[in-house]
């Protein structure tokens, strides 16, 4: 399988024909086949196929600009907002094609939530931040039920005890780590099936990062999670599956412990051992 010559410059364009490792999951929540993403003329993602295993954490790693964030954003059609972005291939959530003509992206995003790199709470109160999703989707008209949703979401995000006395305070007044957990609480308040996380801890200090990682570990009981990260340690700590992206291609995918202990592909090995990236 390993038919690639590594040149002196490891970042030089590599001819990659096939992904090594195992892209399949026994119980796939999302399965992507032959996904290609173009920004205008430029192709950002080349023929990527992988499964996201249900109730497990899949880490997407790779050097900057390798397309892992682009790929993640395709999974809930966030790239629709970019006019020049074009996507081909088959992207399935359960058994539905998420790019089907009759599928409403609004519904998709309610099922596939997203947490962004930089904490981005709305300039509203903590309560309104969490309640926003439930309100816009009309999940409840009842004040008591809404309170319940807000409380359980904040509890799940491990934030409730810290903010229970100041739910009316602005969400932007929290610390960075708390803001990010608020964003997670906001996402899970809509009860999504999949949560996409785009480097959720990259703007946080190690202690806040540890809390978020612990949280991710708990969240996988209920949700399927895909996380983009620059930290290999983080990928090793939180994920069960790891996919290594390089220059818009999926180089290798497999169980996290396999990838980090004996990667099959030279590129993966170079990246993991810190030779580049």
């Amino acid at each position, binding site marked *: 399988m390993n038919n690639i010559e590594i040149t002196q410059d490891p970042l030089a364009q590599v001819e990659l024909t096939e992904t090594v490792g195992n892209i399949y999951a026994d119980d796939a929540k999302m399965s992507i086949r032959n996904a290609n993403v173009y920004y205008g003329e430029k192709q950002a993602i080349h023929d990527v196929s992988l499964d996201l295993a249900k109730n497990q954490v899949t880490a997407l790693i790779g050097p900057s600009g390798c397309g892992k964030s682009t790929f993640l954003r395709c999974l*809930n059609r*966030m790239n629709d*907002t970019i*006019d020049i972005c074009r996507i081909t291939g088959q992207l399935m959530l359960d058994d539905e094609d998420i790019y089907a003509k009759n599928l409403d992206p*609004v*519904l*998709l*995003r*309610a099922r596939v*939530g*997203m*947490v*962004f790199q*930089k904490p*981005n*709470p*709305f*300039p509203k109160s903590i309560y309104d931040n969490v309640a*926003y*999703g439930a309100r*816009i*989707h009309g999940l409840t008209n009842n004040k008591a039920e809404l309170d319940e949703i807000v409380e359980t979401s904040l509890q799940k995000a491990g934030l409730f005890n810290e903010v229970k006395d100041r739910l009316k305070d602005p969400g932007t007044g929290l610390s960075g780590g708390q803001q990010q957990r608020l*964003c997670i609480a*906001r*996402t899970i308040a*809509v009860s999504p099936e999949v949560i996409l996380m785009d480097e959720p801890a990259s703007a946080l200090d190690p202690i806040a990062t540890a809390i978020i990682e612990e949280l991710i570990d708990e969240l996988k009981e209920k949700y399927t999670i895909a996380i983009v990260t620059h930290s290999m340690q983080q990928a090793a700590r939180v994920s069960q599956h790891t996919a290594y992206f390089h220059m818009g291609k999926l180089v290798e995918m497999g169980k996290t412990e396999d990838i980090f202990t004996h990667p099959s592909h030279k590129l993966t090995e170079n990246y993991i051992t810190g030779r580049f990236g």
Partner: protein
Amino acid sequence: MTNSIDKNITGNATPAKLQTKLSTTEKVALSLKKRHQKERRFRNTGFSAVLFGFMLVVILIGDITTKALPAFHQHWVKLDVNYQSDWLSVDANLSGYELTQQLKTANFRKVLRNSLYPMFVNEQTPKLSRKDKRSAFKLFSSNAEFTIRDALLAAPEDLNETVSIWVRLDDDVDSYLKEGFAFGTAGLRIDEQQAQWVAKLEQEQRIESRFNTSFFTASDSREPELAGIKGALMGTLLTMFVTLLLSFPLGVAGALYLEEFAPKNRLTDIIEININNLAAVPSIVFGLLGLAVIINLFGLPRSAPLVGGIVLTLMTLPTIIIASRAAIKAVPPSIREAALGLGASKMQVTLSHVLPQAMPGIITGGIIGIAQALGETAPLLMIGMVAFIVDVPTSIADSATVLPVQIFLWADSPERAFLAKTSAAILVLLTLLLVINTTATVLRSKFEKK
């Protein structure tokens, strides 16, 4: 470390021997003095610019205020009016409704004349000549006749009695009293005889200076002592009401559509360029458009605040759209993404996140637009809002004029008293501007707090 940098610089820069002796720190220290000097110069220039601007504003406001002050008070004179029924040519035996009807059309001018001539006779001139009579009559406002009529209508029992009634002096006399001209000065519009009479009236303590309420309660008039700004003020308020009602929602909706919904293609590019161009179109062109299309084609009434408002809307729309688009663009994309990621529809993202965040900027654009419209004269000239209108407009379809046009009209009038009126009207316009701006600022800070 320093050494290596030093070598590097000298290595590839110049072979000058001087440079090799200086370390990096020394070079920085050398340039530092120059840089600080530059900074100081820049700061001082900025400060003097601000000071200069502030000074000009102070001079302007001070000048206008001093010039406007005379307009806020006015001289009244006490007349002993003899309401003789045969001068009025009414039947003294009538009463009630019939008497009132007769009094309404009675000859009060004769009463006025006969009441005021005796004030100016003395031993030397027991009888006034025809010329004297005319110049004596000219001392009083043309409105005095109606003042004494209204007084009698209010108290019909005074018929055939002599009562003291205060009437306005003519504007020329008023100006003479206010400005204390030496006799024979250019601009003085009363003659020696009249000046003596005025002095006599003053001696008898018949002349009194009162606050000029009619300036705020009356509409325009050819007689400066009667002219007020109420009509123009109402016209301005009605016109601004129409302008605000049309331009703000339209401008914001247009900006939101162009920023959030419109596809980015050649057509929207062309629209954007044209909006920017429209902002630079001379305002009188919009007036021509209003005349040709809104009045002549659609047949809306001439001189009406409705048409004025529409024309000013055309003029302010580009300003509001450009400012609103800038404000909408400045909303961080992370907020949009967060809402989209939660499954908010485009509409929900726009209304609950983009618009509130952009509101302070949009309001600022609105203020600029409205302030521009408030001071606009040229386009309104084209649609007939320059007409001389004595009635206070009560609806947007009535004939009206606006404050800037009123200022223009008064500034154009030859009567000396209009000079003060012009300044006073400018003060009122500036006050109105200040009120609008303050309201908008309060509104904006309220939105910013949210």
